[in-house]
């Protein structure tokens, strides 16, 4: 149990090492060391390590950690291990925002901003809808509101795709919807890292409360937890990191669903250990998958395709041993 988090850290470190060395331009370990320590090295290799791979590694780790922690937090909040970070429409909202950005030719920064805003607005809308309904279990109402607004956003996405220019805009939209880290540049990193650090920080600080919040609403309140306040905080933090991830990398499915299960398998259900482990493990695994995406074929394979390819059989295997998976 205790060693679980170390395994996750090992996966992350191995992922970093592989991501630096593997690719169209192979970098040997001595060369990598030279680049990192400022030793003797050709300018082109130095560029590969510092300008191309390092930002992409940072982005992959941040996105993987963000989606995994958000997924784990939502699973706890909704008391349902089959929930993923897009349950409240964060991904769909961000996707619609990004597609509108592409549609109106806003440029990369504009598209990312539109995606980020779209994710936040979608979840705010879901939350407002859920709060307006004062009957029934608040968690169930929130979930249903998420499903309804999510399908509404899906219709919006379909509409924008239909209206888009099929030669210039549609391929960009499709590629974006499938997720990719190919566009990761050092200049764009703060837009990803700041919200992710903020959201992850809040979730990690509240992680013991997440144990309590995973109990039925009335039990948690009888234990003295201010559930309404905590729910707002957790949803806001998880939405922040999800929207920032989708804005930076497009839709990367499965990670937020599968990684929390893997982490639970390693360290058990308590969020005290689960959240840090999920962060390390999610960062490392997405890094591995992104390295595959850019090195396995002549063209980049969209991330979302690889995560689905790897994630779905994996998840079926997990379901087979379901009980163990979330105990």
């Amino acid at each position, binding site marked *: 149990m205790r060693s679980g988090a170390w395994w996750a850290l090992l996966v992350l470190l191995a992922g970093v090492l592989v991501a630096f060395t593997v690719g169209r331009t192979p970098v040997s370990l001595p060369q990598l060391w030279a680049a990192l320590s400022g030793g003797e090295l050709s300018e082109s290799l130095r560029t590969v390590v510092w300008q191309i791979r390092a930002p992409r590694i940072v982005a992959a780790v941040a996105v993987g950690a963000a989606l995994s922690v958000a997924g784990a937090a939502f699973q706890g909040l909704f008391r349902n291990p089959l929930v993923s970070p897009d349950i409240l429409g964060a991904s769909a909202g961000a996707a619609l925002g990004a597609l509108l950005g592409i549609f109106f030719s806003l440029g990369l920064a504009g598209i990312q901003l539109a995606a980020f805003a779209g994710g936040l607005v979608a979840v705010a809308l879901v939350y407002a809808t859920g709060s307006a309904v004062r009957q029934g279990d608040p968690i169930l109402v929130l979930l249903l509101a998420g499903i309804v607004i999510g399908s509404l956003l899906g219709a919006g996405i379909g509409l924008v795709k239909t209206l888009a220019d099929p030669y210039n805009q549609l391929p960009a939209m499709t590629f974006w919807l499938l997720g990719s880290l190919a566009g990761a540049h050092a200049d764009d990193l703060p837009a990803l890292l700041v919200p992710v650090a903020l959201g992850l920080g809040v979730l990690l600080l509240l992680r*013991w409360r997440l*144990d309590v919040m995973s109990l039925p609403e009335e039990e948690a309140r*009888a*234990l*003295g937890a201010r559930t309404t306040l905590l729910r707002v905080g957790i949803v806001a933090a998880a939405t922040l990191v999800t929207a920032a991830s989708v804005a930076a990398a497009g839709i990367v499915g499965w990670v937020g669903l599968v990684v929390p299960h893997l982490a639970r398998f390693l360290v058990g259900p308590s969020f005290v250990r689960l959240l840090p482990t999920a962060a390390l493990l999610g960062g490392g695994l997405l890094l591995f998958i992104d390295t595959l995406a850019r090195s396995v074929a002549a063209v980049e394979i969209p991330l979302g395709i690889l995560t689905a390819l790897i994630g779905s059989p994996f998840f079926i295997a997990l379901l087979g041993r379901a009980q163990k998976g979330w105990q």
Partner: protein
Amino acid sequence: MIEAVDLRFGYPGRTVGQGLSLALRAGEVVALLGPNGGGKTTLLKTLLGLLPAQGGEVRLDGRSLTAWALPERARRVGYVPQGQASTFGYSARQMVLMGRTAHLGLIARPGARDQVVADQALRRLGIDHLADRSVHRMSGGERQLVLIARALAQEPRAVLLDEPTASLDFGNQGLVMRAIRALAGEGLGVLFTTHDPNQARRCADTALLLREGCVLAAGPVAQVVNAANLRALYGADVDDSGGPRGLPVFLPVFQAGVGGQ
């Protein structure tokens, strides 16, 4: 300790019961008896402040329940819900530690003292050997004891239990009843709902008979829990012809011509 005065209770838009008064004192066990849908659970939730009182007042230590902050309330009154399987298989110790919520700040995690309190709670209920076992791998009775231990970790002065023996087997029912008696022995006020008049008769000091949200009878169990009242409470024939020594045994009549009237 806990006092309800002329209480009207129910869910938003629906009143379940009214005109109810009761008092729970330290070291006393109160049993809440009544048919399904009679308002037992609703009353319990209102006493806990999980549902707002629709009229009258619930007082905790002489002050209106609404005047207490949520964590303050949780440090005084523990709640043992009907044991249901939780989504995630926390260990017994993790579960009991959650009882410390009201004692900890928003971003604090349980510390050494909380561990001690949790371990003590597990020991008091004789389940310290289950500390590291997942609640998914426990029997219903063991899980119920874990929930009682969790309520004790709140360090409350009163504990409210919702049908603590429902869905428990015979042996486990005895285990839980013994635990309830032991808590009262330590000076806690205990209130529990039950379907079994025999449990109320043997385990509680006073009983409150709740029918359609109104008090049918209330008082010391020896006076209140009797065949006539049970007949009125459940609208069913009651056989109390057994139990020749000591306490009467109440059974619903299921054989023509035996017991009942």
